[in-house]
């Protein structure tokens, strides 16, 4: 338990001093703000560039604005999470920073657990807050919608849950690969391949990407297709648990001394 507590404190200090909170907050916040603004400006921009373009195709509302943010942030947010967190374990191994704590008795489960809990909580909070910010500006810029706070909060929570699974995925690849950039790219490839998997029969309720579909579709028609909420929740919990266990196992089995294997 002392390892978990010590690493939670250390991760908070690191994220704060290396501006990780700021980078993630600014990134998600920027797109949360810019999406409704861009949608609001789009008709006049198109009109100036393409006079005569049918205006009825550009009638946007709150729901469309929030859905648009969710779709965009899936691609861009994955990139931000992968780039900021790709060194979460790989960097520590590569630079030999685990040598002192481990030689003083730090447990690998505590180290991995603290990092996951910390970054999952931080990313979830940032994603939830930025989605609600997006909802607020969407309501302000596109008044007259009947999209309620509860429905928006539900979608924000689903989006936050999706990014929690990405944190676990990046930590897993960061444990597998020694080079942070390779770990980040591997996590990105896995995330961008997931939508293809959802097109396979009976796979839609098994992959994290479906959280994006549910978060987006439930705002409008409420139709989430053949996705079963219970099956999806159970599948994701199992997937996350397996990835966490494999991350801990991997970190326990790798040689953490810098230069190990060089001789």
């Amino acid at each position: 338990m002392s390892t978990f507590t010590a690493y939670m404190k250390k991760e908070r200090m690191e994220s704060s001093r290396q501006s990780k909170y700021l980078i993630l907050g600014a990134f998600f916040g920027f797109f949360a703000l810019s999406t409704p603004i861009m949608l609001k400006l789009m008709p006049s921009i198109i009109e100036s560039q393409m006079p005569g373009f049918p205006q009825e195709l550009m009638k946007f509302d709150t729901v469309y604005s929030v859905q648009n943010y969710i779709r965009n942030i899936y691609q861009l947010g994955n990139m931000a999470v992968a780039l900021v967190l790709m060194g979460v374990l790989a960097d520590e191994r590569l630079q030999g920073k685990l040598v002192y704590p481990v030689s003083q008795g730090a447990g690998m489960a505590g180290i991995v657990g603290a990092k996951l809990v910390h970054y999952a909580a931080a990313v979830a909070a940032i994603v939830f807050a930025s989605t609600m910010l997006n909802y607020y500006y969407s309501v302000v810029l596109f008044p007259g919608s009947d999209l309620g706070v509860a429905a928006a909060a539900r979608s924000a929570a689903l989006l936050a849950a999706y990014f929690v699974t990405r944190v676990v995925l990046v930590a897993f690849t960061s444990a597998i690969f020694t080079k942070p950039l390779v770990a980040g790219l591997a996590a990105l490839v896995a995330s961008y391949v997931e939508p293809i998997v959802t097109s396979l029969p009976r796979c839609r309720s098994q992959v994290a990407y479906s959280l994006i579909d549910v978060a987006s579709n439930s705002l409008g028609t409420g139709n989430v297709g053949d996705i079963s909420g219970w099956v999806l929740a159970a599948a994701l919990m199992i997937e996350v648990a397996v990835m966490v266990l494999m991350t801990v196992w991997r970190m326990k089995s790798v040689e953490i001394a810098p230069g190990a294997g060089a001789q």
Partner: protein
Amino acid sequence: MLNVKALSKSYGQTRALRDVTFRVTPGQAFGFLGPNGAGKTTAMNIIAGLIEFDSGNVTIDGMDLRRNRSGLRGVVGYLPESPAFYGYMTAREYLLFIGDVSGLTPAANRSRADELLDTVGLAEAGRRRIGGYSRGMKQRLGMAAAIYNRPRLLLLDEPTSALDPQGRLDVITLIARMRDAGMTVFLSTHILADVERICDSVAIIKSGAIVAADSMDRLRERYIQPVVDVVFDRVLESIPVQITSAPHVDRVTLDGDRMSVFMRDLSLGKRELLHAMANLDADVASYSVRQPSLEDIFVRLVNSR
């Protein structure tokens, strides 16, 4: 305190350690010597519990390393060759972090951090970020982190390499203080003068295998080849035959007016040498028996097998 028996480790086809065996008794400062790439760091990393080994047995304080990794918490402190820290932390914050990992109470942790910053001479720099520290300062901080949990066995991997003379002296003095305080010190280095100053026993490793392991006195007795250095009043053109043919002389080197005579037996050889030199047509300017050093043992063992 530390008992290493038939320890072996390979990286692919390369055998980094081959049946390494030695024993370190409690309270001893033990030197682990070897040329670069001999396997010193691999052995240190294994003893520190950081990497696995293929075969053999390591016991620390009577506990088997493989079976008691968590039980050895607090027993072993380790200073790696290039200690890595979090550059955004101050030295004090880093030591507090190590204390948190070790499970110290907040009050005990603060007190220990301040005490150790003072011990290693970083009291004033303790609130500056580690990212701005010199190599010597990082080495001293590494020492503080290694002894933070008051280990009974302190592993030091090349603690003085890349330090300036003053930094080296500071670290050596600190190690001597740890040994005098009753800590068992296991020191890996290729700087032989450091070992001669503080170690009671040494093991010499070459290509992953131990070539000698004993107390300093016994090693001197067993391996030091007595050498007589003679300086003549003029340059000699060749080594006189009457010296090389003397029965107790092993070999002779000549460098201008300086001759070094390597004896098989000093007490008998000295007399023969004096007789032989009396018949030379060159006068002797000085004659001295060289004090045996660890370097002589090291060079002889590492080069001879």
